[in-house]
């Protein structure tokens, strides 16, 4: 990108980032104009390449700045979200591009409040974004309504009797959010451009609250002049100057590179269990198993384990899980289809095998009317402690929980049924169980044998 000759001084340096003869769209005496002039001065002092500066602006008067700047990038956004869009730009620049972009946000007091979360998170992450919070105590563009940063007693369009709600100290919020660079000053501060240059040059998140006068909606109503801005700060207990300057915080991009980027896949090992070979599927017709038990008793994970064996057997499988919104309480259900062919509908209206391991599962099956839908082709396997429901299925009561205990009841019953009915090859089923317990599996097989013996002794039927 070539700079215009007007911008190039004889020394080759940039003398202004503004367009030629910028026309400021602000009311006479508005603080925004001086803030923008000081911002331009700061950019000039830093001599940043214009294509390495992005000005991200919010909704509100301070956002009407795109047309003032000549060669830098401008991104005019939605109300309050400017910091979030800027965070995305900065993250991508620092981690996916050349990392040379300086991203600057212009936001008002209204935008700071509606977008507070974005400011807090940008501070927490410590992205290379500099935010100028231009606090003129009112929403200027919509007619001078009060904001969350409006001082007490302040007369605004929405506080005609004077503001009765104490304002937030935005700098304190951001300091508490671990922002490494936080400052507050006033628009008429002669050293503002130096402060801005320092903030922009800082590699990380910097926030500067600039107290301003809204000449249209704040000055006449509240008898203000530039000097009074310091009084307002003092009266509200707002510190002025650099309020936080931390050298101990690394930018997010640095930490991300150190700890996260290009590190080993967390789940790439998951597939290892699937690579146990294949065989020609032997299942004659699709089989459905509905397993119902309690959350925390490994219902869905046991179904998943069996699913890996099914895949190794060359079968298609679907595992549809259901549970309440909570993760560790109430019922837990897994619906499994095994088929040599593609599986369509993944739900199970009337299971070939209904396996109920606990009272939570029983209640859910009852309320979903699954028991009532069983017919003589269905088998119900149920723990002996549970009430046998009215149903047409073939019922098998088992000493399931007393043999396996709650934690292994689901897997124990699944394995028992799969083997008893030749649904999956025995060696594959036992293999995935062995993998799960990492070889320490004798206890499981002992219990399985016990269950098989118990059931053979005649405890199986109703």
């Amino acid at each position, binding site marked *: 990108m070539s700079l215009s000759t007007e911008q190039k001084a004889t020394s080759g340096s940039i003398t202004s980032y503004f367009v030629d003869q910028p026309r400021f769209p602000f009311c006479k005496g508005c603080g925004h104009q001086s803030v923008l002039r000081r911002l331009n001065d700061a950019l000039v002092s830093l001599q940043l390449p214009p294509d390495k500066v992005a000005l991200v602006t919010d909704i509100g008067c301070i956002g009407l700045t795109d047309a003032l700047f000549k060669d830098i990038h401008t991104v005019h956004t939605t109300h309050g979200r400017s910091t979030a869009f800027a965070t995305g730009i900065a993250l991508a620049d620092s981690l*996916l591009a050349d990392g040379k972009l300086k991203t600057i946000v212009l936001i008002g007091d209204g935008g700071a409040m509606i977008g507070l979360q974005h400011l807090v998170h940008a501070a927490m992450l410590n992205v290379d974004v500099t935010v100028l919070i231009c606090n003129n105590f009112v929403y200027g563009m919509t007619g001078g309504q009060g904001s969350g940063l409006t001082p007490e007693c302040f007369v605004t369009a929405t506080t005609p009797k004077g503001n009765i709600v104490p304002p937030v100290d935005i700098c304190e919020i951001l300091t508490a959010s671990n922002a490494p660079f936080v400052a507050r000053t006033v628009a008429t501060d002669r050293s503002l451009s130096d402060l801005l240059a320092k903030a922009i040059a800082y590699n990380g998140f910097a926030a500067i609250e600039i107290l301003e006068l809204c000449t249209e909606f704040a000055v006449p109503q509240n008898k203000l002049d530039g000097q009074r801005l310091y009084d307002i700060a003092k009266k509200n207990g707002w510190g002025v100057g650099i309020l936080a300057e931390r050298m101990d915080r690394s930018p997010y991009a640095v930490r991300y590179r150190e700890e996260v980027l290009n590190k080993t896949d967390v789940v790439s090992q998951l597939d290892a269990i699937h690579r146990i070979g294949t065989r020609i599927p032997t299942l004659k017709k699709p089989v459905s198993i509905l397993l119902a038990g309690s959350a925390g008793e490994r219902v869905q994970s046991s179904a998943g384990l069996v*699913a890996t064996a099914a895949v190794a057997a060359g079968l298609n499988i679907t595992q549809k899980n259901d549970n309440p919104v909570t993760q560790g309480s109430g019922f837990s259900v897994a619906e499994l289809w095994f088929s040599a062919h593609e599986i369509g509908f993944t739900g199970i209206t009337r299971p070939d095998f209904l396996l109920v391991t606990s009272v939570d599962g029983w209640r859910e099956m009852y309320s979903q009317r699954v028991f009532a839908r069983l017919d003589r082709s269905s088998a119900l396997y149920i723990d002996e402690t549970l009430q046998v429901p009215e149903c047409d299925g073939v019922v098998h009561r088992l000493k399931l929980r007393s043999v396996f205990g709650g934690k292994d009841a689901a897997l124990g019953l699944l394995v028992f049924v799969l083997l008893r009915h030749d649904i999956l090859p025995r060696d594959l089923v036992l293999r995935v169980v062995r993998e799960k317990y990492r070889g320490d599996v004798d206890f499981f097989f002992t219990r399985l044998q016990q269950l098989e013996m118990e059931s053979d002794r005649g405890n199986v039927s109703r």
Partner: protein
Amino acid sequence: MISPDTTHPPHSLRLRSGNQMMAEGALQAGCTFFAGYPITPATGIFKTMIDLLPARGGVALSAPDEISAVAYCIGASMRGAKAMTATSGPGWALMTESVQYALMTETPLVVALVQRLGPSTGGATQGGQGDVLLAEYCTSGGYTIPILCPTNARECYELTILAFTWAELFRVPVIVLSDKETGMTIESVDVGSLPSITSQNRPSNFAFRELGGFRQNERKGTYYFDAIHEIPVFAPVGGPRKVTATGSAHDKQGRLQKNSPETLEVLLHLEQKVRWRLDDFAVVTADLQPAAGTLIISYGITARAARDAVSEARRMGERVSHLIVHSLFPIPVKKITQAAHNVDEVIVAEENMNGLYRSVIDRHLAGKRVRGVNKIGAMITPQEILEAIMS
């Protein structure tokens, strides 16, 4: 962890959820940036991206809310990244402000929307197809947002890649509309047979320069086009070409303007660039039977039940056609009217109360008897569709 079993030949069946496949499709498409916020039933996409993307040199991070998540993605996309986020209905409600911003600023973006039962927080672990129109008509002005809708885990992969291609080529937000049952159900996927295609890239200044064209347009502005359906050349924020991006009504240079003819032309262009390519956006699976009197139209999770129902109906001697719509929007009008050409009756099966998709395709089915199979709270079963066919 486990050494391969050498007694059996290797194979490529893997267990995957639709959510995982969507994440893997995004990686295959070259997605480099993902920001997310947890929400059932979409969390699996977020989690898979957190686990897989950084290892491939990309950025995946947690945002403090859905508004931030999608805004981070849009910002990253403006900087040149291929970006994606994932959410469900309640999170989508928060994202729509920024999705409109992506549309207005012609910023490529992919959003995975995994539906759950609504309204409001509804049922977090219950499925549904109730967000179809909430997703499509989220913009003031009703701009067409392309929506792709997978029926299984494999299609989650394939359609996510396609979503990136559309987002990148046409500089639009694209939604991949899944649901709890498609997203969270785990199924066997033959990963060895997945397509090895990746997504195409946005038309960049560089690419056009390589092609020897558009040089004269370089300085004409961020949103410059000649013909109204043309896609403006993309320039990243932070790149050598000045970007003037804005979500406010603007001219081709990105200058905020009120009602100038050029501004209105830009607004029309945002719709026309999609409309002009209607045929390119049509993705369906047509299983048509000669002399069929009934056409079933289905999409997403319900298509699986519909497929079973159609097989069963045919086994019983019924003549019935089936059209699975994968690209819900823009509405593939030609494909729908072709499929419905000779039938007397069209049945639209979808898991929502009022027949949301039926209500927008109805007008393209003039002269047909149009009915719905609708339900909330649970998947529509093959039996329920079969009964509709037979009645």
